[in-house]
């Protein structure tokens, strides 16, 4: 086994251990013998059983797949656009989801359980479609990111306008919703995210050589027989579907897609296959532990998970900028 496979194997073990360890954390008082009993299905305490199976396990599993999904979406976008700052959120996905959530909160307040994730998903997808459309019209796919930033601001302003004239409490709900949380997830969310993640990974594994060719530049890739625009659009679509689904269930969890691939490049490698597998594993470990912090660091409340990821992410971002300054 070479060095890369050894470290990937070690990371995979770490993911499993993290998930198991994360189940032991939480505000409810459950000791380890109770926990073991509940896990193997011989639970004496009904309350502990509900807490573990209906609250903690769905949370840990969703953290696992959401961390994987956000990290690989970032990795794919960074490699296909050859831009180290590409991140699914820069395509206006969060502001699109925010607009969807706002409209749901204002007009469908009685049916939020279904309406909110659906509206957020549609909003996120809508924003990506506009971004791609603008980039197409401009005939320059490399300007995707700039178009994304502009669309982001546009959608955010519509959201704010609606909120200003809406019910005052809706603003609170939307703002806190956007801060992100895994508190609301249930097992069905895990199945949805996991299946989209699976499709995304299979597609990327099948096309990893073409994506690697893109790293050499558009002309070189084209000369190797890659349909550059088509490939980029397909990858963007996959990332959009993946991120939009995660955002719809978990709210805004920023910076995971940006920072995890950079860590992986340092530790494991830059080519697509290594990057994707590494990002998935490290992303999963990262989000599992961030959620543990979110739910167990304050005695009587939760910290929205997006606050923690953005805080860590922004420091990391500055660190990258500092390092690149030192090199040049």
């Amino acid at each position, binding site marked *: 086994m070479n060095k890369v496979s050894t470290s990937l194997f070690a990371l995979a073990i770490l993911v499993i251990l993290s998930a198991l360890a994360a189940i032991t954390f939480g505000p*409810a008082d459950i000791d380890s013998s109770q926990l073991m009993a509940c896990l193997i299905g011989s639970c004496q305490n009904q309350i502990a059983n509900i807490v573990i199976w209906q609250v903690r396990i769905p949370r840990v599993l969703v953290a696992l797949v959401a961390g994987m999904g956000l990290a690989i979406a970032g990795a794919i976008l960074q490699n296909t656009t050859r831009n180290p700052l590409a991140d699914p959120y820069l395509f206006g996905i969060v502001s699109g989801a925010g607009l969807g959530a706002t409209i749901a909160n204002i007009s469908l307040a009685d049916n*939020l359980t279904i309406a909110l994730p659906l509206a957020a998903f549609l909003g996120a997808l809508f924003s990506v479609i506009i971004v791609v459309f603008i980039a197409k019209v401009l005939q320059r796919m490399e300007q995707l990111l700039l178009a994304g930033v502009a669309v982001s601001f546009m959608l955010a302003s519509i959201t704010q306008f609606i909120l200003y004239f809406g*019910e005052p409490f809706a603003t609170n709900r939307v703002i806190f919703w956007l*801060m992100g949380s895994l508190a609301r997830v249930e097992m069905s969310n895990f199945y949805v995210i996991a299946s989209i993640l699976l499709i995304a990974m299979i597609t990327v594994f099948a096309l990893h050589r073409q994506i690697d060719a893109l790293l050499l530049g558009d002309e070189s890739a084209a000369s190797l027989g890659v349909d550059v625009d088509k490939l980029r659009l397909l990858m963007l679509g996959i990332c959009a579907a993946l991120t939009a689904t995660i955002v719809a269930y978990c709210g805004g969890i920023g910076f995971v897609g940006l920072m995890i691939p950079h860590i992986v490049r340092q530790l494991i490698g830059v080519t697509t296959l290594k990057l994707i597998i590494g990002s998935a594993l490290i992303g999963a470990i990262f989000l599992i532990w961030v959620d543990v912090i979110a739910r167990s660091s304050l*005695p009587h409340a939760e910290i929205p998970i997006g606050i923690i990821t953005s805080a860590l992410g922004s420091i990391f971002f500055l660190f990258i900028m500092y390092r690149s300054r030192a090199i040049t």
Partner: protein
Amino acid sequence: MKLTSLLFTLLLFSGATYAELNKELTNDESKPTIIALAPHIVEMLYDVGAGEQIIGTTSFADYPEAAKKIPRIGNYVRLQLERVIELQPDLIIAWKSGNPSDDLARLEQLGFNIIYSSPHTFEDIANEVRSFAKITGHTVQGEEVATKFEQALIKIKKRYQDKTEITGFYELWSRPLTTVAKGSWPQQFLNICKVKNPFEHVITPYPQISIEQVLPASVELIIQPLSVNQKEREAFNWEDWSIIPAVANKQILQPDADAMHRMTLRSLTALKDLCAEIDQTRSFLQQKHS
């Protein structure tokens, strides 16, 4: 912003102790154990005699004094589902507009019995007091306090209904300058105390406005509620605008924001005090004009 400062206080003050209260209280069938998810709900439950049945609440439930000892299970951003499941309440009373709807939906899914509070007027308060009293097994006391509240409300309304209207500006917040309009909670105070709000018909209930819009309204009275929780709050500096009659005549009232803005029986005392203060301004203006 108000929101951020609230968030900070709530982070700072979340250090209450878990009491073993719940275990002793869960035995009586007709007196269900309750998780009350907003300060005003806690206050109403104490008013009808159901305070001892509360086994969990959210941050800021600080009235009456005994409420400070109730275990906290979250704040208005997020509830700790695990703790709610652990406490096993017979009943959860939630605030429709103020609690995280996804958490409530999840609790309903898990089979908890949730009823909602959503008071918008003084009349709603009396109705909710009655229904909470009934569901918690305190019908008699609930009826008593609700009736007393309604009678006091009628008395106040009667006292001021024939008074002459004066034009007043309600400063809900100073930066940005924010006032109230129809559909907002404080607008009722203005209606009952016979204050004409120049911004009453603005489309949003809590409009942001500029001083330029206040100037032509020839405001005779400024109401500037202040909260004890916001010591650092900088109220709008009206001294610079002596062209406004209320400023020239020094008719600026500073009622207690906490008493006015919490939708409970106590709000009536705030109403009574505010109307009385406004009436003093009214007499002052009448003397000045005669």
